């Protein structure tokens, strides 16, 4: 087993982990602020992927450029879903809220998945850009430009989200609502507006992950649930409530999966991820990347 194999595996783990991280930050944001689990998060990843795919097929627009269309499109879809569906759930309290959010978002998962199948067929799609085969070769380690692009965009998105949440008033209003929604109301924050914007932001993050999936893997109407599950594992690793911690946790999961796939057995990829998930729940249930630990 060579050092190149190890490094190559590590690098691909990082690439995959970056996608996990972005998908998971969206789910963590919605979970942390609205206190509901959106099972349909993966469907938003899938729909974001399709928007990216159709913009590419129709106009030949580079998927990294078309993010400027994909992100607003899913942001608006997020606003619509919040207004029509989720705002009725977010008003509920405690256990009733989490149960209803699971039921409703699971239902929405089926609706969106079937809608996608009807609109886009079940065929697997992907975006083949002109530079798909090209990349950097650093000491024998291959880094395709598409993969490198996804990781760089993922990093930029994480930094931008961090800046937005910590440094701007609308961002701080989101963090405050996540901490204590009544105290946020008493500070003069319109929390229903915060809920709406947060949900839309979660959808926008999902669409970025969806674009990455379309560029680097493939897209079909049924991929949603896989991404919901990955994102769920990642937010438990990060610690539920840790929004930005989801990014390093995503990277960690990506790397661990890649290494176990190469050095144990490809079929154990998923298993090792889940074993870590269970270990973290047993040993450190508050999560690995909690800010106020």
């Amino acid at each position: 087993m060579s050092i190149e194999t190890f490094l190559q595996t590590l690098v691909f783990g990082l690439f995959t982990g970056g996608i996990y991280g972005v998908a998971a930050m969206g789910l963590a944001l919605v979970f942390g602020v609205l206190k509901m689990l959106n099972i349909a998060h993966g469907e938003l990843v899938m729909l974001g992927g399709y928007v990216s795919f159709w913009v590419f097929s129709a106009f030949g627009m580079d998927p990294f450029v078309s993010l400027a269309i994909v992100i607003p499109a899913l942001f608006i879809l997020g606003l619509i879903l919040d207004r029509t569906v989720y705002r009725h759930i977010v008003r509920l309290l405690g256990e009733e809220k989490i149960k209803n959010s699971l039921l409703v978002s699971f239902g929405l998962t089926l609706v969106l998945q079937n809608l996608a199948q009807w609109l886009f067929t079940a065929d697997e799609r992907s975006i083949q850009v002109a530079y798909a085969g090209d990349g950097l070769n650093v000491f024998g380690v291959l880094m395709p430009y598409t993969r490198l692009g996804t990781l760089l965009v993922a990093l930029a998105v994480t930094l931008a989200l961090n800046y937005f949440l910590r440094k701007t008033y609308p961002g701080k209003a989101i963090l405050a609502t996540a901490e204590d929604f009544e105290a946020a109301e008493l500070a003069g924050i319109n929390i229903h507006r915060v809920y709406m914007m947060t949900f839309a932001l979660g959808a926008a993050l999902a669409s970025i992950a969806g674009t990455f999936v379309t560029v680097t893997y493939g897209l079909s109407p049924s991929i949603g649930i896989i991404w919901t599950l990955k994102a769920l594992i990642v937010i438990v690793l990060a610690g539920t409530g840790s929004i930005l911690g989801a990014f390093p946790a995503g990277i960690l999961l990506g790397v661990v999966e890649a290494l176990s796939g190469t050095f144990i057995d490809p079929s154990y990829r998923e298993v090792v991820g889940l074993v870590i998930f269970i270990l973290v729940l047993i040993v450190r249930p508050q999560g690995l990347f909690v800010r106020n630990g």
Partner: protein
Amino acid sequence: MTKFLDIQGVNAAYGDIQTLWDVSLHVNEGEMVGLIGPNGAGKTTLMRLIAGLHKPMSGSVQLADASLHMLPAYEIVKRGVILVPEGRRLFGGLTVLENLELGAYTRRAREARFKTLERVFELFPILAERQKQLANTMSGGQQQMLAIGRAIMGLPKLLMLDEPSLGLAPLIVENIFEIIKLMNDQGVTIFLVEQNARKALELAHRAYILEQGRVVGTGAGKELLGNDEVRQAYLGFAPAAGK
């Protein structure tokens, strides 16, 4: 004096249990009014109701010309009614400075936030020293100071405090009441719920007594301090012998 806050015939319930019965009271502009009563009397419910976290079944809450009972909480804050809630309710995972900044969320307060922040740091120097500290790692007294500081950041016209002295050391309680008095002297109207009835009655111009969701007494603070029933019920005096 004009009535600043005017509550008329308010009935309210938590679930199936009615907690306020036909409550009417008012607070004049510039006044400090206390609200005392045993646990479970509905004091906190009344405070939450004024702040807009809880809606009445009937009755009205007027602030000058605005009907507060028709407004969501954030609109009430915009009108300068700010509640320091029971148990402080800080943003525990955020820093002292972030908590204070969030106190100045409304546009009116945000424009003045740097000036107000200086003022809060003058009132509570410890908050200036601990700006970067996470709120939930501070002591109870410091947290209460932060809760009051956060409320001041919102430029209150009516400052409501729900049990500000609960669980705090006597020295800190003194300090906090001094600040409340100072705020009132500077023109902020104060509405105060206190389990420390003696302290509340000494400070307040007037007070109301709430029992089982009903207003059962009212009067000037000093007057109530001398009232036998009040002394027995809330100030721990035994009934005078032979009476």
